[in-house]
């Protein structure tokens, strides 16, 4: 059916091209020799069909990972899939399209009615999320090429203090918020621009990408998966989704014997310890704290949205049009700077400054809405993260933290329980 569609698509195109030949009214020079006029070549882009192959591969990898992590309990299987993802999504597909970046496409499609999103981009966004709702972060475990390269290059992971980990865990939410804001306002796709590993997969790329990639990989030798844990905006969403997953990788197959071996296996410190009697909190003071935080969250959100709305002016400066407008207002002398291509092109375009300012104002208004939502969101995240620290869940066994566990399966190898 799809092929039929493609053929139907191409048919008028072919006709149009033959038409074009007929339309060429102005004749070429009268060559007397046998010279034939070449036509410009137009190498075709990768076809649409192939994009759906990618979706299919993603689906298969996700399913297999889930199976390996939950049913088969095979670290080696997951490792193999990781290598496969690094090769397929990384080296072969050059890291584009990836689910991490698709967040921005979805955000822009949601905000801008003119933007046309491809179905496969939408699927790349949806599939990992749906899987995480049912099987945990299997996407991070083996399907994500960015995770794969870091996972394969862990050398001597060091332990990071829990408070630092938790605090740094705030960065992905901030990154996510900014990425969605900038994507939705049509400013730019910052996740893609600062993607550290694409340059490495392509073995080609601008300076910044390569430097960033090397820096992250070197860091990754000692801090396991630094990008995933402390930057990845998609990871932030997956973290939330995975907390409510229906099934999840379990460290032990039947019963935990409290040998603690798994805690040394996990380089991400994603294994929760059982509660000890002595750490059991004083229920009364804890309840008070809980109520305090419950009250604090709306306050934080309000404060956040107020500050966010205040911040829209400088956040919007990232948009090139806004920046150009402000630049021309604040530095009118730049108009005579013949080296500044951007200003010169603007002046040559015949567009008046008024129009530019009006356009910039429209963008800034979008930023106003976006910024206060962002502020409120960040307030909520801060509040929830802090509150999460006083909620005690009863635990008797060593168990993977559903939010932070990447389903890489290292612990499975260590668990002595048969």
């Amino acid at each position, binding site marked *: 059916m799809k092929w039929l569609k493609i053929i139907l698509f191409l048919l008028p195109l072919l006709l149009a091209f033959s038409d074009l030949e007929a339309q060429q009214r102005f004749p070429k020079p009268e060559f007397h020799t046998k010279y034939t006029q070449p036509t410009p070549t137009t190498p075709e882009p990768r076809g649409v069909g192939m994009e759906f192959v990618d979706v299919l591969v993603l689906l298969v990898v996700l399913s297999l990972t889930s199976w390996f992590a939950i049913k088969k309990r095979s670290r080696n299987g997951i490792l193999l899939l990781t290598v496969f993802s690094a090769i397929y999504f990384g080296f072969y597909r050059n890291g584009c399209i990836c689910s991490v970046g698709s967040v921005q496409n979805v955000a822009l499609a949601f905000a801008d009615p003119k933007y046309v999103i491809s179905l496969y981009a939408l699927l790349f966004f949806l599939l990992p999320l749906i899987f995480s709702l049912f099987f945990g972060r299997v996407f991070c475990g083996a399907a994500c090429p960015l995770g794969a390269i870091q996972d394969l*290059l862990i050398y001597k992971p060091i332990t990071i203090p829990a408070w630092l980990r938790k605090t740094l865990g705030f960065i992905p939410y901030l990154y996510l918020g900014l990425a969605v804001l900038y994507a939705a306002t049509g400013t730019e796709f910052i996740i893609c621009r600062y993607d550290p590993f694409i340059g490495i997969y392509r073995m080609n790329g601008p300076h910044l990408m*390569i430097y960033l990639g090397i820096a992250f990989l070197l860091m990754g030798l000692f801090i396991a998966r630094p990008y995933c844990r402390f930057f990845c905006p998609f990871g932030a969403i997956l973290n939330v989704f995975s907390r409510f997953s229906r099934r999840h990788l379990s460290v032990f197959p039947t019963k935990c014997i409290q040998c603690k071996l798994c805690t040394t296996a996990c380089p991400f410190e994603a294994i929760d310890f059982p509660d000890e009697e002595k750490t059991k909190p004083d229920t009364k003071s804890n309840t008070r704290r809980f109520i305090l935080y419950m009250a604090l969250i709306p306050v*934080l959100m309000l404060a956040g949205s107020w500050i966010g709305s205040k*911040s829209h002016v400088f956040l919007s400066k990232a948009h090139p049009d806004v920046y150009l407008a402000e630049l021309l207002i*604040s530095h009118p002398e730049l108009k005579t700077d013949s080296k500044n291509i951007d200003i010169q092109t603007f002046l040559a375009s015949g567009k008046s400054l008024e129009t530019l300012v009006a356009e910039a104002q429209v963008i800034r208004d979008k930023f106003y809405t976006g910024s206060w939502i962002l*502020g409120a969101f*960040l307030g909520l995240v*801060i509040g929830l993260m802090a509150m999460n620290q006083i909620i005690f869940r009863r635990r008797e066994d060593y168990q993977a933290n559903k939010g932070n566990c990447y389903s890489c399966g290292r612990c499975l190898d*260590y668990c002595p329980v048969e």
Partner: protein
Amino acid sequence: MQDTQDNIKLFGNLITVSGIFCLAVALLLLINYWHIRQTKPLETEALKSLVQQFQADPESEALKKDIRSLDLLARKAFFTSQWQIKAGALLLLFGAIAFATCLRIYHTMKARILEPLIDGVDSKVTRMLSQRWILITGGLLLGSALVVSFLTTDYLKIYEETGTVVQAPAEPAVKVAVVDKDEKTGRQKTEDGGQEDGKTVVGDAGALVIPAKAGTSPLSSAGVLVTPAKAGAPSLNTDFRNNHPSFRGPWGQGISYHTGIPVDWDGPTEKNIKWKVALTKKGNNSPVIWSDKLFIAGADNESEVVYCFNRLDGKLLWEQDAKDIPGSPAVPPKVTADTGLSAPSVTTDGQQVYAIFATGDILALDMEGKRIWAKSLGVPDNHYGHSSSLICWKDKVIIQFDTNKGGRLLALNSLTGEISWDTPRKAKISWSSPIMAEIDGKLQIITTSSPTVAGYDFDSGAQLWAIDCLSGEVGPSAAFADGLVYAANEYARLAAIKPGPTPVIVWESDEYLPEAASLAVSNGLLFIATSYGMFACYDSKTGKKQWEKEYGQGFYGSPMIAEGKVYVMDRSGAMHIFKVDRTLTSLGDPILGEKSVVTPAFADGAIYLKGEKSLFGIETIRQQKK
């Protein structure tokens, strides 16, 4: 055990070696990278200066040689470094693969030996610490955002408040004489410019003449004036031609003189829809345009309103109620839903705009919406609702006031609203609108009704000719072209009438007859749109049918001719565009996405349509891809 220990050691060493290898290659690559960036071999100053020297001294063989060798070197450097990067990257890749493999093996072998970590951390303390740090970081972030936001200057706001900070580019040294926008902007605009510097004169004969130099009399040099009509004849002037002053265009003839009318739009996806505004009050009248202003009317049981929009952006400029009119009925008359209280279209002469409603209220407003006069003609006894549109010219507003109590044709003084003349008609009730045409050098008003089609003198209101050829409830207005008047009605006939003291029916037909849509004639072709969805084209001289096309939807809106195309919209809101031609050439069927029963209005490069719910401004918008 010993074996494993050895292996572990071996792989540990391998890891170190491959790691160092990778680091070394990476370092070399980075240096190479940086080096190219710094030197930019392709655009060296040395080469540039050599070339300059050579151009000064084109015969120098030595210079030529130097340039060639330097250029070769530069290209070599450029492409070699490219190759080096490629090769280095491959080496690095293999190194990394080796490193990763050893790492895996090492970890696998070492796995079982690790001692479990002794957990000495008090989780309670950790939790407290985490809470504190999260709150501190969050607070810091929000705080710094606040500080930064107070430190940033909103230049856009400054700009808006203080106006131009940046000087506008200097005026061109050359004086630019604007010879009007090709007469298209209408009187309003030319008067603005004209009265100020005394250069703009609207010639009587219709040509707009603007001297570029002060002091030149505009008419003295008008040696080759092309006059469209004989001097003294009351011909349709440029102002009217260049606007859309009444229902079905200038003089209601169904012809627009505008160009560049879009033929492609799409209401649902907003393709080429420049603007769209929701209508607040119902009214089956059609839009009317003068210069940049677009007028429509609307009414419900509460009030009767005239609206004026800026046709360029769809902004409502003003609206004016028809209230406090002496003699106006307290309760509007009963009308049918598909006629409504505001079926007649308004009309304008560029100075004022006139509107009539089913209550018999008529009012005149100036272009800014200020009421000039208003009066009630008495509630028309009309079982569907009064729907005949107004038409104005010079100092008169013409009203075809055919009711169940008999027919009248009225002319009101446009400045005062007083009756100029009032001619009783031998006519039953009708819903058609008067048109104007110049016949035998006389400006006439042509009306259709049951049973009479008649022509009246514009100046005196005297009936000049009449012929009985229609019957039933007449809705379609007449058309005039090349000396023939065309009239038609459903269940009656279509007749081409040669007007004169004794009018003659030149030809007639009864194959396709319209119920509501008026006729349009251009280029020897007559167009008919029926209420059952048939659109047909006849030879206007002989009555021979040229072509026909059937649609699932009937036509209530009238066909309009512009730019050699005929535009007709069916009740579903789908416009059908054809070439004015003897063979059927469809130019598109753009849809509005709303039901519509009205007739389009035109301006240069634009078409304005009114649907059931909204008013649309349509222009061919250049597709922006971003």
